[in-house]
């Protein structure tokens, strides 16, 4: 008990110094948590991928479309349960900065994504309306879309102004589901394109392929790609997760930079903490010598120093972790639909705690070693 009492009172001895160190730690842990969450958000698409979904695209590039008739050939492959075409639309809503993902999809698409929860009545209304659209809850909240609203999008890939009517708002099965997307009928897109620019009709961005047995994903992918080998439009089929990670890889340098910065923040606070503990131990050299004189061993002194350092680290990290959640929420709302899923994960919280413990321990190492090694007579000379 006396050890805890001493640690507690020593921690509060220089309130300003302890307070400032703690504030630094709170900011560091909070920043670390936010940066890690940004990295997680980048990978959220891959994390939300289902193992029974494959993506087939043009082997040359995602920008090069595939012919519509591939759909039936893919469907004929053994192990394929369903196929749906989808096209990236890239329309502008009012202002180019209002970015959100828009996809023209076939009806089969929704049966492959059970994580999108749509009320039956709204779903039926969507299918009844050729210009109908389904929007995610987050997207609806960001732009204030309500059922019945007319949403005009200015096409960039597909020229002209396109008008849609919101017929339903979908929710996610869990927090990891992306609810920032905008879906509309592929038929509407294709028929309109056929009328405006016939050369661009019947072109598909990607096929989503649902398979019956997830263990046969590689085999089915190979069989699909074999169908179109040596054709003018060869395909590349991969799991949805691999497809999503491929996207993330394009921006991997940014992610590495974010990761480095997050750990640099921790390193800087380690230096600050180590300095605080070194100053503290230097000031208390005489007290440590007195304790040694009275018969207390090096272990007791080490416990005092580690205890104080860890107390600051633990309190700072608790406040930092507690603040991470509301700040992440605010950050996500400010970012709009840029990060479809922005959630502080349990792993991030555990990493924040581990970093704080590592900082607390590392900061006390050198001062504790010095306190244990100092000769009593030298320590006593520091008093007076």
């Amino acid at each position: 008990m006396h050890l805890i009492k001493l640690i507690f009172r020593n921690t509060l001895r220089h309130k300003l110094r302890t307070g400032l160190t703690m504030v630094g730690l709170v900011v560091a842990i909070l920043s670390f948590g936010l940066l890690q969450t940004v990295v997680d958000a980048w990978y959220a698409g891959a994390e939300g991928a289902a193992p029974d979904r494959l993506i087939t695209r043009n082997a040359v590039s995602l920008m090069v479309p595939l012919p519509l008739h591939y759909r039936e050939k893919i469907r004929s492959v053994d192990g394929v349960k369903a196929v749906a075409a989808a096209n990236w639309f890239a329309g502008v809503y009012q202002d180019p900065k209002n970015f959100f993902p828009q996809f023209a999809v076939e009806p089969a698409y929704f049966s492959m994504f059970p994580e999108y929860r749509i009320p039956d009545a709204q779903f039926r209304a969507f299918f009844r309306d050729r210009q109908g659209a389904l929007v995610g809850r987050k997207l609806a909240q960001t732009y204030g879309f309500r059922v019945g609203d007319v949403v005009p999008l200015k096409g960039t890939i597909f020229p002209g102004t396109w008008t849609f009517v919101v017929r339903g708002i979908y929710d996610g099965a869990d927090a990891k589901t992306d609810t920032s997307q905008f879906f509309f009928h592929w038929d509407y897109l294709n028929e309109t394109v056929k009328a405006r620019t016939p050369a661009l009709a019947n072109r598909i961005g990607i096929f989503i392929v649902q398979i019956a047995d997830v263990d046969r994903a590689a085999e089915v992918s190979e069989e699909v790609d074999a169908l179109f080998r040596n054709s003018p439009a060869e395909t590349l089929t991969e799991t949805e997760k691999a497809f999503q990670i491929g996207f993330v890889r394009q921006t991997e340098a940014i992610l590495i930079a974010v990761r480095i910065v997050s750990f640099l923040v921790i390193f800087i606070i380690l230096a600050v903490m180590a300095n605080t503990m070194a100053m503290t131990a230097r000031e208390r050299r005489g007290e440590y010598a007195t304790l040694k004189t009275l018969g207390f061993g090096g272990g007791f002194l080490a416990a005092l120093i580690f205890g104080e350092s860890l107390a600051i680290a633990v309190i700072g990290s608790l406040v930092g972790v507690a603040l991470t959640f509301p700040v992440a929420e605010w950050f996500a709302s400010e970012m709009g639909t840029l990060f479809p899923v922005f959630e502080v994960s349990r792993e991030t919280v555990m990493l924040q705690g581990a970093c704080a413990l590592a900082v607390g321990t590392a900061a006390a190492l050198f001062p504790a070693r010095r306190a244990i090694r100092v000769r009593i007579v030298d320590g006593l000379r520091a008093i007076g």
Partner: protein
Amino acid sequence: MQPVVEIRDLTKSYRRGGQTVPVLSDIDLVIASGDFVGLMGPSGSGKSTLLNLIAGIDKPDSGMLRVVGVDITTLSESELADWRAQNVGFIFQFYNLMPVLTAFENVELPLFLTSLSAGERRHHVNTALEMVGLGDRMEHYPSELSGGQQQRVAIARAIITDPTILVADEPTGDLDRVSAEEILTLMERMNDELGKTIIMVTHDPHAAGRAHSIKRLDKGVLQDGER
């Protein structure tokens, strides 16, 4: 009287800037149980070093150093720490109290190295603080006490484990005349009433006058002919 301290051919030197500086040379000294010895000498004469060696917080280069029947030169650091906790009470010039602990907690500190229960510790601390006249200042922090009062807390801490020897390094060096007198009187009581052997380093002839005998050191050599 049984000797509490027996020193023979004791030498001690320090290394400073690559050179060996002798501090104590061929010290022979015997201190009997219950004695009150004043150690005097000019600055740098080695009196504090001799006190530190007797108290087991420093080690000699050579010679025999038997304190309370134990040759403490043979003890390891941890054995010495245990030995000090059981046999030696320390009184420092600047009191060396823990500023974050109250008078009660400071006196209680050495008892955490014993197996006494919380109730027994409380009883011992109350008795010691009453004995030094600070029964009404138990919950005060050192910063709330005068120099004389802080030194009395330090004396209570020194006697709390009932050690055989009290070593005091300039115990009145930081005090005014009145407080110094009170501390010296208290130390005399510890010697007379509790039978503690006291070894006190001092510059002050008046303080040394309260000791039963005075040993004088000069340039690391113990001088003869003192009372």
